[in-house]
Structures are given as structure tokens and as C-alpha cells.
């Protein structure tokens, strides 16, 4: 316990007396943690954008005008039992007509043609949302096959718009999967780069103290007694850098919201504030681990004697 207290105290004293070396190390760890924070926010933007895209995609099953509602409801409940299906929304013929009129309110010839017909030419429809974009095809195939669906429902289906939208859906599916892959790759590369830069800076700060380490060993200090204060110092770099990073990102995200059109839909500041404690925990843990592990590895080289 005494040894532990001495190590902690020595770490704090070394940090305080380190002066510009300590400041430089904190600065580099702050840069590394800012990269981490940026990645977290980037993931937030990416997943939000992908969710928006996903939300816009659905498959609609249009029914004939004489399709009985009971049969449509039966089809709806059997669709809901499919594991790929997230939700099924029923829109009756009247609402479909109302929506159509609203959508084409400025299109006079279309509205005039509709009035000419007199009765409602539109049938009811079901909007089916899949859990994943890639699952729409299997849902569409399932409906086409008539096997597990309510018997006789095939003759009430007027059309399924999946086949018209297939190209767009496939493209979106590719965009989402590519974005995720690129995001993951960029994250890995940035994290590796940040870790390398931090590790080398801390190695440099310990390189300055290499003779000191040798002397400590020569006067009979144990490996832990030599290494411990450097690891505590590394943890202090991490803690201070975490505070600096989080303080920087507060006004930075607010500025992004005000000045960047890209964030018009997604409020990155709200995202940052509402997820503050998770972000704080991730950054703090990363900062401490980065500082402690870098110091541990850097001191090891000079401890062999």
C-alpha cells in the first residue's frame, strides 16, 4: 500500500515538474482523443443518415379496388409474422385517394381527370418495412409465391412496387453497406494513426528520462517502482487530455450546427450533449489506456538492465 501511494505521488510530482514535456504530451494525447471523439460523432452522423435512408424505403402492395378489407387484414397479419418484416401499415382506398389529391394539388390536369372518373380509381395498399434493406427481395418473393400467404390473396393484389423500385433499393443497399465498410476502415486507420503518434510522443518523453531509469535500477528500485510513476503520469496525460477534448468539442459541435449545411438535418450538438456521458466514458477510458499502455511499453525498453 505504501509502495502504491509512493508511486501515485511520484507520478503527480513528475507530471508537475515535467513542464513543457508534460504539456507537449497532453497536447498530443488531446489530438488523438479529438480524433476518437470525431469518429464517434461521425458514426452518429453516418448511422443517422443511413436510418433516414432506410426509413424512406418501403415496399407497397397495391390491391384491386374490389379487394375486401378482411382479406387485406389477413394478409397484413400474416406478413407481420415474417421475421424480415419490421412494420406493415394499412392505408384504405379513401385515404389513398386523399393522399393522392394532396400530393397532386398543384397538378390541375391530373385532378381534373380524377374528377372526370367520378368514383375512386385507387385501391387500398399496405406499406411494408423490412428490418434490413437487403430483406425486401425475400419479402417480395414471398408475396409472389402465394405459398404461406392467405389462400387466394394473390388475385386481390394489383401490383407490388418492389420490382419498379428494385434498382433504387439495390443501389441504396450498396451505398449503406459501402458507407459502413468505409466508415469502419477509416475508423481503424485513424485509431491506429492516433495510437502510433501518441505512443511515439510518450516514448520520446520517456527517452528523455532513460538515464534516470538506469540510475533508479542501479540504486535497487524494483521494476514496478520505476515503471509505476511513468504509468501514473500517462494516466494523468489521458485525464487532462479527455477534459480538454470534451471542452473543445462543446463549442465545436455548436459551431458545426450553425455553420454547416451538411448538419441541417442532423443536430450534432444535440447528439453530443445527449450522449455526453457515453462519449465522456469512451474518451476517458481511451485516454487513460493510451497513456498508461504507451508509458508501460516505452519504459520496458530501458528496464532490461
Amino acid at each position, binding site marked *: 500500500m505504501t509502495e502504491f501511494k509512493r508511486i501515485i505521488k511520484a507520478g503527480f510530482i513528475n507530471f508537475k515538474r515535467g513542464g513543457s514535456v508534460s504539456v507537449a504530451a497532453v497536447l498530443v494525447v488531446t489530438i488523438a482523443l479529438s480524433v476518437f471523439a470525431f469518429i464517434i460523432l461521425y458514426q452518429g452522423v453516418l448511422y443517422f443518415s443511413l436510418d433516414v435512408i432506410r426509413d424512406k424505403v418501403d415496399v407497397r402492395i397495391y390491391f384491386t379496388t374490389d379487394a375486401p378489407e378482411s382479406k387485406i387484414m389477413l394478409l397484413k397479419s400474416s406478413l407481420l409474422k415474417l421475421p424480415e418484416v419490421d412494420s406493415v401499415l394499412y392505408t384504405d382506398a379513401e385515404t389513398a385517394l386523399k393522399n393522392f389529391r394532396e400530393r397532386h394539388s398543384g397538378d390541375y390536369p391530373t385532378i381534373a381527370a380524377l374528377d372526370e372518373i367520378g368514383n375512386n380509381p385507387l385501391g387500398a395498399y399496405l406499406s411494408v418495412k423490412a428490418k434490413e434493406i437487403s430483406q425486401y427481395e425475400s419479402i417480395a418473393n414471398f408475396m409472389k409465391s402465394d405459398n404461406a400467404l392467405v389462400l387466394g390473396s394473390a388475385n386481390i393484389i394489383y401490383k407490388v412496387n418492389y420490382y419498379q423500385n428494385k434498382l433504387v433499393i439495390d443501389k441504396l443497399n450498396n451505398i449503406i453497406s459501402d458507407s459502413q465498410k468505409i466508415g469502419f476502415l477509416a475508423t481503424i486507420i485513424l485509431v491506429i494513426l492516433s495510437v502510433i503518434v501518441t505512443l511515439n510522443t510518450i516514448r520520446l518523453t520517456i527517452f528523455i528520462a532513460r538515464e*534516470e531509469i538506469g540510475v533508479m535500477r542501479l540504486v535497487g528500485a524494483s521494476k514496478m517502482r520505476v515503471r509505476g510513476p511513468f504509468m501514473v503520469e500517462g494516466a494523468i496525460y489521458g485525464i487532462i487530455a479527455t477534459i480538454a477534448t470534451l471542452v473543445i468539442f462543446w463549442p465545436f459541435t455548436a459551431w458545426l450546427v450553425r455553420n454547416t449545411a451538411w448538419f441541417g438535418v442532423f443536430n450534432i450538438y444535440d447528439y453530443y450533449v445527449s450522449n455526453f456521458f457515453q462519449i465522456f466514458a469512451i474518451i476517458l477510458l481511451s485516454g487513460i489506456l493510451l497513456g498508461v499502455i504507451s508509458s508501460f511499453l516505452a519504459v520496458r525498453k530501458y528496464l532490461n538492465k
Partner: protein
Amino acid sequence: MIYFNNVSKVYKDAVALDDVTVAITAGEFVSIVGHSGAGKTTLTKMILADENPTDGSVFFESINVHQLKNKELTKLRRRIGVIFQDFKLLPNKTAYENIAFAMEAVGKTDEEIASDVPHVLELVDLSHRLHHFPTELSGGEQQRLAIARAIINQPELIIADEPTGNLDPINTHEIVQILKKINDLGATVILATHNRGVIDSVGKRVITMENGKIVRDSKHPR
């Protein structure tokens, strides 16, 4: 106490020690003399296992120091006090903390540290420099601080490698007197130096080295 058995040390293109065999008994004051590059420092570093021999073995009592594991080596080093020409003090620690660190290394309590450090600093006439950093001390003061650090844990052996190399004659005389006093109190002292005056003032056993070999081992120098 110390036994070098046919020890050789060869660096890439230079022989630092050439088949050295020598014994030093407990309580002796041995001066190792020779020009720069004669092998004095390598010889002292071998005892601390700070250098490994290319051939032969070095014993501290019956222990082959180069076969020790890390933990055992740490324990052995706690029995040896070391003084270097360039002092090798911890630059970011005050005089008090430099001595305290050596005591902490051997597991002394805070109370023991608080009572012994001022005492040893008083012995080397540095009690007024307790909270000064090494850079704030003169060469002679730094060396006295290094001696205080070396003797604080009452080691059985003191190795002093050119301890007066950077000092003026007055400080040199003071350091030699302190080393003699330490020897009188029972510790074995190995002093490596190229200063003939220092050896003459010690007046004890002298080992002369040239090109990594012991060329003379005299218990009674001129």
C-alpha cells in the same frame, strides 16, 4: 567478497577486459588505477551486472551476479552503493528526494526516511541544501549528495567510479576523506580513478590496469 574469474569483455572492435582474475576481500579499500580506456569502469560495471562478460564469471560472495534473475539482481544492487563521476542524480528530485528514493527502493518506512535523510545530508554537509535540485548544487555538492545516496542504506560495498573526476582539489580531498571514513566503518570500497594523487592519499591496495589487463596488484603503493 568479490571474485573475478578469468573475465573478458570484448566490444565490437575493442577489448575492454582481457582475462581478468582478481579477488577483493570484505572490508578492503581497493583503488583501481589506469588511463582512460584501461577497463576500470567496465570492471566496476561487471559487479553491478550493468555489463555482461564475454567470457568468465563475477562472484559477489558465492553468487554469480550474471546468473541472477531480475528480482535477485535488484536485491543484490541494494547491498551496493554506487558513486559515479557524473553523479547520476535524479534531476527532477530534490536532494532530500534523491536520498529518499534510494531508501524507498529498499522498502524503508516514511518515518525512517524522515529521520535518516536529514541526518545523512548533515554527514556530507548538505543539510542546508535539503530542498535544492541537483542543478542548483555545485559539482562538489552533487558528488557529496551522490555519496550520501550511496551510503544511506549502509551497503556492504561502495563502488566509486572516478568520483573526483569533475572536482577541484579541495572537493577531491573531501570526497577521499569521506570514502576512507566509510571504509573505516566497515564497508568495502572499490575506487576507480586515474588520479595518482588520490591513490597516494588513500594509501591502500592498488590494482593497476592497462588495455583491459591487470598489470600490477600492490597492497603497498609508493
